[in-house]
């Protein structure tokens, strides 16, 4: 519980499931929102099946509790769905789901950008590199 944040945001922020990156990057598509110059960053990684279904999603975020919660929500939302069916994810839905205040709506915009970038990215073909992160929940 937090007086400052909606319960859902607080829970996602304090216990973000699907945080991290795949240790074995093969077949993984990575999308980013935010530029190196900007402070806030959101990275989304998707492991997709041959028929375009998102089998697993992981995120990493540098940003406020709303952005971290947005990353965690996004991963939960897209997992198990077909990539093309979530491509046009409605930003307003994220705003409503996470009760984003006006000054935090950029989190929804970043979620859309990261998702679109990940869906459009080529699948990684490089072999696993050691120690680059974790893929646990």
């Amino acid at each position: 519980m937090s007086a400052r944040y909606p319960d859902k945001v607080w829970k996602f922020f304090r216990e973000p499931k699907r945080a991290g990156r795949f240790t074995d990057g093969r077949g993984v598509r990575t999308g980013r929102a935010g530029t190196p110059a900007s402070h806030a960053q959101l990275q989304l990684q998707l492991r997709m099946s041959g028929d375009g279904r998102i089998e697993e999603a992981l995120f990493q975020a540098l940003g406020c509790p709303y952005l971290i919660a947005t990353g965690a929500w996004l991963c939960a939302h897209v997992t198990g769905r077909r990539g093309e069916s979530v491509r046009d994810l409605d930003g307003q839905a994220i705003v409503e789901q996470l009760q984003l205040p006006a000054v935090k709506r950029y989190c929804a915009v970043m979620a859309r950008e990261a998702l679109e970038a990940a869906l459009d990215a080529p699948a990684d073909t490089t072999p696993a590199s050691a120690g680059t992160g974790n893929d646990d929940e």
Partner: protein
Amino acid sequence: MIYLDYAATAPMREDAIEAMRRCLGADAQFANPSSYHAPGQAAAQLVEQARERFAALIGAQPGEIIWTSGATEANNMALLGGAAFHKDRGRRIALARTEHKSVLDPCRQLAGQGFKLDWLDTDSEGRIPPEAVESALKDDSLLLSAMLVNNETGVVQNIPEMAGLCAERGVLLHVDAAQALGKLPLDCQRWEVSMMSFSAHKFGGPKGVGALYLRGKPPVRVQPLVFGGGQERGLRSGTLAVHQIVGMVRAAELAEAARESEFQRLAGLRQRLWKSLREALPRIRLNGSEGAQSPHVLNVSFEGVDGEALRADLTGLAVSSGSACTSEQAESSYVLRAMGRSDALADASLRFSFGWPTTEKDIAEAARQVIATVRRLRALAPDWEEAA
């Protein structure tokens, strides 16, 4: 919950609470000190005794102390009242961007009335070098305002040196000493300052009371901001809050009596916290000046974390951050930005401040919580690497 926010405010010292209690009830010294009857005069005597005792603590004469509602009012009185009275001596005011808002805002008001503000540049440690003072003071400078101890960083300015530079040029010097009493020795007379502001609740007195030191020789004058019954020699009307004044001075005496031993103790706690954080966390930065530092404040910036997330995640720790949440949109610390920190580093900063109740156990637990939170948030961030 571990409270490490003593630069924001402190609990009252028990002795000061007791002293206040003796001025409140029907069988106590509750009367109006402006009244001519015996109870009134008894209350007035308490106020004057408190004035004498407070003056002695800061190297002043009793007639040089004006009671106010706190440091904010004292700063306003010094700047607005001082500038109004002495405006024929000059129309320029020198100050640093690292001052408290209760100094910056009155100065901006004065700028709107035709005064010119000359900004003193600080170095990256937040100190105002003497060259900055020399170049900021002009022929028609009226006043320089500087804080003795910065409330965000604990950095100490060299007030005697500034006073010398001001005196050579006939410029008034106002010192905001809200964070200093009980931490550093104060001597208004010897330092040749013109005005000095104090706040009781920073050293264990009640909120809502403070004082302005107004130099008697040569006399420094201010125009009053509050008019009415003519209390405080007509400079600050309003029924004197006897209990507040008595509580303030009792707390000041206790703080001053323990000052030297507390300085050593708090310096040790501060070093211990900084060492714990620095050894556990790469890429953190001290916002302060090891050569000129009050021991009750440790301000640290953390690379690779977001300031709001850092503040939110530290649920067991009452500390301040490098951000003033004046609205939903937080603004990163203007003090740290003035010291050259980036917006991100100014935002991702924590101010730990210590007081007489702070223990080694508090410090160890605070370090544990901060280290865990910073590691957790850094692990969540893309691109984070321990080596810069």
